[in-house]
């Protein structure tokens, strides 16, 4: 048997379903790989060896009993530590939740279990998903398998690095401003942000409620679509969840893989192909555009002038919501409690707990958000940002009257060295320049590998109208069929 960790999810599922390999063997192979490389990559915060083997064993028993298995049964999945997992530590990359074992499963985690996938463990992330490099994890950074001295993107760097390091064939991420797509781009993997409301947020520890979107990560487009299909769809526990079936993303990925884009109109966002991006990124992007054209796509440039205001609007809306969402971390009911020595007042204990438990980026955003929502400043900041959000949505709507989907580089640069941007928050924020507009609009976006720049992966982003997630899978799969997948050097 060839190396199980190099297989796609689709291949693994077929072998398990056909009884050619057991889910336990697959799981052991990935647990062995994690044991071999994760001290260097640090993609995982917690490896649930027992839980994974038990889940895999259950799949094998069901197969032996002749039960029909789901399309991803027996396939290992790495889950970003932002999702609540019953009885399994959930830290959100923060000291303030160290040791917390949720009494419940997030809806997505429940769906993964129901589908017979095998959760290997929880992946590293920037604390509370605030960051673009995973350097803001309270448990130390994750290293990019392409170059261990570089960042794997963020906030979901753990999930992306786990894929690139062959520690898992599938992973779950969450995307508030690019946290699935940008790590996908810099690790040479596929990351999809579904339509807001297309995947349930129940059990996703909130950063910014109106933007947070959990989604699939994989090493190829079809695997991502299969995972999307399993986790997506209406959830009555999330009132912002859309009561409609998931668009047929699997069929769209298969259609795209035929390499035919005849009749598909694509718009290049003018504002994102200017001077902001690195030359190497632009070269890979231009070559991909040529490939898309060759497959029959009609390509035009479209100006979305309000996208220039997306970053500032995002950095008011997301911190405002986070300042409120993170108020519950006070040491009273769960997680860290500091200074409860019988002499300090309740307020002092709450303050000390938060001062000790939160890291610098989280504190920065709580302060920005608290200020932006304050009486007397609300209209000028939060209110104004919401207006910008409406304008950005109008730009998207207008663009989608002309084209089926928009394309751009996923992020302006390739993976930067660890430590290069932590001293300058604004430089860090620029990593999400091209991904943030989609979050403000609520539509879907996907990053697919499109080439290399100086040996490091570059991603191309496809953005589609809300609830047209299938379109982006078609385009991404077509590009993948043209440029292939990218394999990092051996670890």
């Amino acid at each position: 048997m060839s190396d199980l960790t190099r297989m796609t999810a689709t291949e693994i599922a077929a072998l398990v379903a056909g009884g050619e390999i057991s889910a336990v063997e697959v799981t052991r192979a990935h647990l062995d790989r994690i044991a071999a490389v994760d001290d260097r990559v640090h993609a995982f915060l917690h490896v649930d060896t027992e839980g994974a083997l038990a889940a895999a064993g259950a799949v094998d028993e069901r197969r032996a009993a002749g039960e029909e298995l789901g399309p991803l049964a027996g396939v290992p999945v790495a889950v970003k530590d932002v999702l609540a997992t019953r009885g399994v530590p959930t830290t959100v990359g923060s000291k303030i939740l160290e040791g917390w074992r949720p009494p419940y499963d997030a809806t997505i985690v429940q769906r993964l279990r129901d589908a017979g996938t095998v959760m290997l463990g929880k992946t590293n992330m920037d604390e509370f998903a605030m960051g673009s490099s995973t350097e803001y994890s309270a448990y130390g950074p994750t290293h990019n398998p392409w170059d261990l001295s570089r960042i794997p993107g963020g906030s979901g760097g753990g999930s992306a690095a786990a894929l690139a390091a062959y520690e898992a064939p599938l992973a779950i991420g969450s995307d508030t401003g690019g946290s699935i797509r940008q790590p996908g781009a810099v690790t040479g993997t596929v990351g999809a942000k579904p339509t807001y409301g297309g995947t349930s947020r129940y059990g996703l520890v909130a950063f910014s409620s109106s933007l947070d979107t959990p989604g699939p990560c994989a090493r190829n487009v079809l695997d991502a679509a299969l995972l999307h299909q399993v986790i997506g769809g209406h959830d009555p526990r999330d009132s912002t969840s859309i009561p409609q079936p998931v668009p047929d993303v699997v069929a769209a990925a298969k259609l795209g893989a035929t390499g035919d884009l005849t009749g598909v109109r694509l718009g290049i966002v003018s504002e994102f192909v200017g001077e902001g991006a690195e030359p190497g990124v632009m070269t890979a992007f231009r070559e991909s555009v040529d490939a898309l054209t060759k497959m029959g796509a009609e390509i035009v440039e479209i100006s979305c002038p309000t996208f220039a205001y997306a970053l500032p609007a995002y950095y008011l809306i997301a911190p405002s919501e986070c300042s409120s969402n993170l108020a519950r971390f006070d040491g009273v009911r769960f997680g860290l409690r500091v200074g409860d020595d019988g002499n300090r007042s309740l307020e002092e204990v709450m303050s000390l707990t938060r001062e000790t438990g939160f890291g610098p980026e989280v504190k920065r955003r709580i302060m920005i958000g608290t200020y932006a929502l304050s009486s007397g400043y609300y209209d000028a900041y939060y209110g104004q940002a919401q207006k910008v959000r409406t304008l950005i949505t109008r730009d998207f709507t207008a663009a989608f009257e002309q084209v089926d989907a928009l394309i751009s580089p996923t992020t302006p640069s390739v993976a930067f060295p660890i430590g290069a941007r932590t001293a300058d928050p604004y430089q860090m924020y620029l990593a999400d320049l091209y991904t943030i507009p989609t979050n403000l609009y609520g539509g879907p976006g996907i990053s697919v590998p499109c080439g290399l720049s100086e040996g490091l992966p570059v991603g191309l982003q496809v953005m589609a109208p809300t609830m047209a997630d299938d379109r982006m899978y078609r385009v991404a799969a077509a590009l993948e069929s043209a440029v292939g997948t990218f394999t990092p050097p051996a670890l």
Partner: protein
Amino acid sequence: MTTTLPAYDEVVARYEPVIGLETHVELGTNTKMFCGCPTDFGGEPNTRVCPVCLGLPGSLPVANKAAIEAIIRIGLALNCSIARWCRFARKNYFYPDMPKNFQISQYDEPICVDGYLDVEVGGETVRIEIERVHLEEDTGKTLHVGGATGRIHGATESLVDYNRAGIPLVEIVTKPIAGTGVLAPDVAKAYVAELRDVIRTLGVSDVRMEEGSLRCDVNTSLNLPGQEWGTRTETKNVNSLRSVERAVRSEMLRQASVLDAGGRITQETRHFHEDTGDTTPGRSKETATDYRYFPEPDLVPIAPDPAWVAELKAALPELPRVHRRRLQEQWGLSDLDMQSVLNAGAVELIEATVAAGTTPAAARKWWLGELSRRANESGVELADIGATPAQVAELQGLVDAGKLNDKMARTVLEGVVDGEGSPTQIMTSRGLEVVSDTGALTVAVDEAIAANPGIADKIRSGKVAAAGALVGAVMKTTRGQADAKTVRELILERLGVQG
């Protein structure tokens, strides 16, 4: 501080009060506002909780449709406009009884606005304008242990029970009520009583002040005639109708004494004390808390279908005021008589007694007479006296059937109030039934005639009035259980005299 307070009459002669009321009503929905936990009162601490009402990381609220229906019905009953589209908002502040350290409430987009409630005070109708009615979630309950006051200051431990957290709470806010003068305390009380009756009639809450399912904050200010309204205080912990009236009165007296002494009123929260009838200062509102309200991003907007709202409006039950008017007419009572029924808290009791088959006059006689007297003596509400409308109807039925005379009926009623059983049971166990067996009575009459030949002769000779003595004798031998009128007729019949 001042030790003597001015007299109430003097205060209202010099100052004009403005009051305002914020009332919180816990809805009687089966489940909480944003999760499926039960809402029953009581229960072991922290047993009626789940990830949502505990605010665990990752949990999300989903609005309870039954609660939204209930608040729309309240809004309609209070003559409010119902918003076509509105949102929940987050009210951010740190407190351990708030699981998320924000409360899901409504801010600038309440679901019901601009209504009114007419209340009767001293025979006059006062229209109380309603500013808004909105929906929010209740907080948990904090118990501070080890301090002298039971408050957070000085406590060594704080225990939190989240069973109440997330119970749907409706807040009803009046506009400022000015111009009521001397009646201000009574207007406040009458408003809360009327509001309670309206909500009870809608069946959306049990509105029990003692259990906290109806809670009231009272705003009070005083100003000199013709001048701007004064600084207001907000009095909390007002837990009964009587306390509403006392709290307004007490705060008016306190503010007058401060103003009389040349002082100024501090805008603050005050706590009412049931035992002393005083208020004491709570936290100062000089530096207003910034709640950083913003639209709740975890919930979709509420957009009630106008057709549904119209259906709810058409299906509203008869409201208390209309209901009372109809009863007054049916019972043929003057305004004054109806007022005494209202004052006695006897409307529903009389109504139920009439429904059980008694005439309105008889039902009113028992509830306003004997039973009101007993309630006053024991210091309990008439509704809690221990006699039910069914029992009163049964008692009157026995009287109408000639089985009890008036005096015996009152004795039986005492027994009912004392919990001895139903009127029929008490009549039997105490041997109080009217002797209506004419055979037995005839024997007793004949014995009386035989024992008093002189009196019998007088009657025979036409002195019918002398029959009274023989009636008395018969009543004595039957231990008062004969009907005097029947006995008299029987005596005359046996003596061959026309009555």
